């Protein structure tokens, strides 16, 4: 029996077992919770009153087409859903931002400006002999990461378990993997420590002062191991850094990787972002040329990480219609007075009735689909674990677009 794939974190593990309608998530609580979501309601609503899908789609079309500036966010959808939402955004001149995309965009901004040295899971799982975990335990976001990339027993090109180190706050250290070196620093000093590590790797002398106390011995050990490694890897989540420091951190990591690559191999794996975050970024890149925070208002795609931040736009009331999409995680729309079309999974409880509610299927539960892993290259197919007749995000967005019609 082949496994099924799980879209509820960026690892997209595809060895879960579906038997007699139940999913064995291979010990992952996140996956278990995702596949155990209640069937909830299938009722579409307009202004709180039950409506047919067709009527709800027509009402959504009227709301979006009549708005001065619509916003499409949430964006928890499979690739087909994102493709259809972008078509709708292009037609309505909407602004598109994945909800809480800031951390991911911080990593991508460094790639846009400076580049990257990266690898996919398959390379790290089969080669990495020295690993630095940066900032916090990545298994909080990606529960089976160690199992799949570091504790795998049949790696092609490393015989022993990899040497694993940690640089970050002790309270957030991983507990599920033996750490050869711990370099404890609080979050407030994390970027300083990364800078120091970069200097040490380059052979610069770094000393502590009265003001700064960094774990220099541990940093020295990490530096030596990464330099001596055949294939090193640095794993981090941009969200582990404060908003202002995430780009600095990603830049420092790249600086380290570039120096190490002069003599050996070392790669980065930026983590984080659930809800098909990379699938959203990839689809936006191929359709619009930007990975996020795009406005179609002027008729051409425009990217601005500050202006087109969904949270800011809602808080500042710079938009007058909201299309909230949450098919993957059951996230209700943020509290706002902006008239809202909610394309949400059947188990999402809305804090207040939305102008229009369209209940959509959850990819991997109600319908098949595809999502992209956090390492960006690999898309995986999703099966329908409990197929239902709920429309997909793609179908709902297409129905709305159809009712708006072609531009005159």
């Amino acid at each position: 029996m082949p496994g099924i794939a799980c879209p509820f974190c960026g690892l997209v593990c595809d060895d879960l077992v579906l038997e007699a309608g139940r999913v064995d998530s291979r010990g992952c609580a996140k996956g278990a919770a995702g596949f155990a979501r209640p069937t909830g309601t299938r009722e579409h609503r307009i202004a709180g009153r039950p409506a047919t899908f067709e009527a709800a789609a027509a009402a959504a079309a009227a709301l979006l087409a009549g708005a001065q500036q619509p916003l499409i966010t949430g964006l928890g959808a499979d690739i087909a859903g994102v493709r259809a939402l972008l078509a709708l955004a292009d037609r309505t001149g909407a602004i598109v931002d994945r909800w809480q995309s800031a951390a991911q965009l911080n990593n991508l901004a460094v790639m846009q400006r400076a580049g990257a040295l990266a690898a996919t899971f398959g390379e790290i799982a089969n080669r990495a002999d020295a690993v630095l975990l940066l900032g916090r335990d990545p298994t909080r976001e990606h529960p089976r990461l160690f199992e799949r990339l570091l504790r795998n027993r049949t790696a092609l090109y490393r015989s022993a378990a990899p040497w694993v180190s940690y640089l970050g706050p002790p309270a957030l250290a991983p507990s599920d993997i033996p750490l050869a070196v711990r370099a404890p620093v609080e979050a407030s000093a994390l970027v300083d420590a990364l800078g120091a590590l970069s200097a040490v790797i380059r052979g610069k002398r770094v000393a502590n002062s009265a003001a700064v106390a960094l774990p220099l011995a541990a940093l020295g050990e990490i530096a030596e191991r990464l330099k001596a490694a055949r294939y090193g890897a640095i794993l981090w989540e941009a969200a582990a850094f404060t908003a202002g420091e995430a780009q600095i951190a990603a830049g420092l990591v790249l600086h380290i990787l570039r120096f190490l690559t002069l003599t050996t191999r070392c790669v980065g794996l930026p983590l984080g972002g659930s809800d098909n975050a990379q699938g959203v970024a990839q689809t936006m890149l191929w359709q619009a040329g930007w990975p996020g925070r795009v406005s179609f208002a002027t008729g051409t795609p425009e990217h601005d990480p500050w202006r087109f931040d969904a949270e800011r736009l809602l808080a500042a009331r710079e938009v007058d219609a909201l299309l909230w999409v949450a098919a993957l995680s059951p996230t209700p729309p943020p509290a706002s007075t902006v008239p809202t079309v909610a394309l949400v999974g059947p188990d999402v409880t809305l804090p207040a009735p939305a102008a229009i509610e369209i209940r959509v299927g959850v990819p991997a539960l109600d319908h098949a689909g595809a999502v992209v892993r956090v390492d960006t290259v690999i898309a995986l197919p999703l099966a329908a674990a409990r197929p239902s007749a709920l429309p997909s995000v793609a179908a709902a967005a297409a129905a709305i677009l159809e009712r708006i019609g072609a531009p005159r």
Partner: protein
Amino acid sequence: MITKLAGGFVLDPANGVNGEQRDLFIDNGRIVGAPADGRVDRSYDLRGLMAMAGAIDIHSHVSGGKVNLARLLMSEDHRDVTVARGALTRSGGGQATPSSFVTGYRYAAMGYTAAFEPAMVPSNARSAHLEMADLPIIDKGTYVMLGNDELLLRMLAEGTEQERIDDYVAWMMQATAALGVKTVNPGGISAFKFNGRGLDIDQAGPQHGVTPRRVIQALARALHELGVPHPLHTHCNNLGIPGNIETTLATIAAAEGFPIHLTHAQFHSYGKEGDRHFSSAAARLAEAVNRNRNVTLDVGQIMFGQTVTASGDTMAQYRNRVFASPDKWILMDIECDGGCGLVPFRYRDKNFVNALQWAIGLELFLLIEDPWRVFLTTDHPNGAPFTAYPTLVRLLMDRGYRNDCLKTLHPAAQKATNLGSIAREYTLEEIAIMTRASPARLLGLADRGQLGIGAAADIAVYAEDADRERMFRAPRYVFKDGVEVSGESGIAALPMGATHVVRPEFDKGVTGPIKSFFDDHMTVGFAHFPLSQGELDDAGVRVLEHACRPRRRA
């Protein structure tokens, strides 16, 4: 519904038609004979115009993860070049790295009706095909990258018999919905993951001890035995290195007479003579191509200006990072089956090396005698964006223009090339061969690239113009499967082109060892690796399968 294209001059070299005035009739997307009852539903007056089959680009990086990374890296390109949505069309942007919709519109508007993505990493196949579902109008297809996949290298290291290699190649082509197989720096991408920084054709790779020559032999032979129409699409080792002509010539020999296609050959035609230790070896390669009828090549012409190089060749791209302009680059090791590297480039006419690269590409075009065996590419976007094609056509057809351009280049480069003394000018028929008839033949697309009865009605109609750039920049009409997709007022319709594939047969016994390899080492399950027909259907991908003619040994 019968559409008549009336009274145009028809240039259809595949059928021996060279500019004769004749009517074309289209029914249900196909070229048909004149209707017996004379009934015509729609007629286009093509008097004074010239009709050719739609052009086919056999090598253009249009889709997939590498192209998306290039779009990300080239954010200036998307800031500076934007395309507004139209009544029919979607918005987008980019010149060197256009968004998917814009790619389709621009190709169609230039008279192209197909473009083939030449470097699909196996593990990226699903993403690449989903992306191509948003590449409108034109047909497409992919060549899957093999020869740096750890499984194949291990099979070769273990001395696996050729039949099993054939089975593996066939399985991989089916799994990834490919039309062809490309090998990129065979063995070199894998070597780079083991910290190898160079790999020549007879050098044993660092882990497996397999030489690039062995990879080329095995793959070229596999495709021949499987009867895959497109020969091994080969990006040789040592891209960009002065003196790499020796490697390129050795690669031809490595094919041992089996068909082989050398891609972006301009980047592989370098000598190391002269004061600057960089010279043209185009004449040597052209001579080898003229002599070896199993060899075809596309040029990968460079044109001056800003672009980005997007390649599976991480080893070469790491070397080339020092030339990055603007100064930023991305390298990625991918899933034990490939890699990719993105390095922005600005080719400058006053730079000796760039200027000579330009001349080397043109020398190749002009010194290879048989237009059926040389193909017009810029290796989009590596040498230049595909929108440079009309200018390139003019360079080939107009010696005066070519020599005027040559005179503006770096003086030492002018002295280092024989280009100025080459009198040849391509004829329209030769252009039609190299951009239509021959690509279709080389890819096994029997009903494309020609306008005979039964052919797909992919047609470009041009107004004759002595300025060949202007002529090829803006065809009067373009038809895709009989539908007018581009006309005098721009994009006229948005049919979805097909995705061309082959599905060579294999012995199902091969899947056992492949499954074991996936179970033990890969991070995608064996069952999830292949694309299913259902997935392609759901995404709106229209698959057109072409026949293979297996030549298995008894």
